[in-house]
């Protein structure tokens, strides 16, 4: 029985069958990986590129990033503040979704794309205070249509930046000042400490 099967597999027909099988497994795996890399479907197909190119600041809709841990996602009232003054809001079919949310007073349940696991306590404020721009981590949103995450946000990625920015080297301490060196060392201790993010 088994011998017969092997003989059939070695025949031209069998080889084609093996090839088709291998290809289908490979393409299923590729499709699986592809689906994990897709941005999630949002309740409103909000175009980041249009809004950023119109000159809306990141902090206008995500103001919590400046002072708090979480930047926050805008409510429908925030959208309506501008959109009620725009004539296109009444005509565009894409904006009818927003009108529906506002008129029925439904909360917009945005799907966050840049997330860290539950056991990581990330705070936006210190990162903004350290002079980082939004696009350093979140990418250039003026080229992104529906919100997507450009980074794999894992611990190695966090620590690489923390180590680079606190290394006692020519870039961070050009004059080889012992005071700056001590400060960098203290920062490095804090920024590579487990308890800074995991608690």
């Amino acid at each position, binding site marked *: 029985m088994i011998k017969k099967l092997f003989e059939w597999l070695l025949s031209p027909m069998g080889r084609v069958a093996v090839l088709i099988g291998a290809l289908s497994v490979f393409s299923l795996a590729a499709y699986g990986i592809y689906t994990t890399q897709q941005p999630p479907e949002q309740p409103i197909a909000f175009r980041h590129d249009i809004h950023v190119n119109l000159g809306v600041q990141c902090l206008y809709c995500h103001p919590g990033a400046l*002072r708090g841990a979480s930047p926050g996602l805008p409510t429908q009232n925030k959208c309506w503040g501008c959109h009620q003054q725009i004539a296109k809001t009444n005509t565009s079919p894409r904006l009818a979704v927003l009108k529906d949310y506002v008129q029925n007073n439904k909360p917009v349940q945005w799907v966050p794309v840049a997330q860290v*696991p*539950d*056991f990581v*306590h990330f*705070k936006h*404020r*210190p990162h903004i*205070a350290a002079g980082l721009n939004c696009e350093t981590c979140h990418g250039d949103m003026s080229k992104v249509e529906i919100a997507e995450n450009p980074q794999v946000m894992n611990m190695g990625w966090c620590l690489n930046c923390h180590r680079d920015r606190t290394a006692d080297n020519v870039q961070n301490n050009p004059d080889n000042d012992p005071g700056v060196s001590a400060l960098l060392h*203290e920062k490095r*201790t*804090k920024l590579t*400490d*487990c*308890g*800074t993010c*995991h*608690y």
Partner: protein
Amino acid sequence: MTSNLELPVFTNNSEAELGGKWGMVVDRDLCTGCQACVAACSMENNVPFVGETDMAYGRGMHWIRVERLWEGLEADYQEVKMTSYQPLMCQQCHNAPCEPVCPVYAAVHSMSEDINLQVYNRCVGTRYCANNCPYQARVFNWRDYTDYRPGNTADNDPSWSVLQNHLNPDVTVRRRGVMEKCTFCIQRIHKAEDTAKSEGRDVRDGEVVPACAQACPANAITFGRIDDPESMVSKAAETSRGSLLLEEMRTQPRVTYLAGGA
């Protein structure tokens, strides 16, 4: 055969570094044993209720417990003087016995805050640390006590419990097989440090109040910087009434107990 692996070396550098950063003082004469600290701690830190059965197995979970020390019972009941209470939490030892025994470095020492950490996502649940803790301050999650599935809400999952709304978002919800213990409310320490930094100043004395100290109606618990000689906690610890638990073991705990009247 030589190896290039750099293994961490555990040395007792305790005599050299007695400084410390955060410390606590518990006044046993003021403590009435009301258990408010236990309740507040469980609420603040998402410590689960394990239920009767698991409690009977000795799997109760408390980051702080109130020990009762009966005094004067040796004669007869008329001679009973008083019950002395001793709230006991992780002592945040400088020379901690739990740390060197962890095979996966989940029990590590925070170099910046100088307290003991438990890194939940690293912990594999060998329970060596709890067995090596002379204060029995560590507790183990024998089950998933909190039905926590990220992303689920009452809308899409009927088994979702409304009680999940009581969870503190600043503290990780621990899962089964993970060791945990008192963190000196590190989330409050970070919050105070963050606020102070955004206002360009140092953390004020008394700005960080752990949940147990906040809830204590008798103000028996004081918390603050022990490296600042002017802080409330340093002054309280300096009095002759102070003592450290199991001091002879050289664990150098950061909690000082006051007892013996004024």
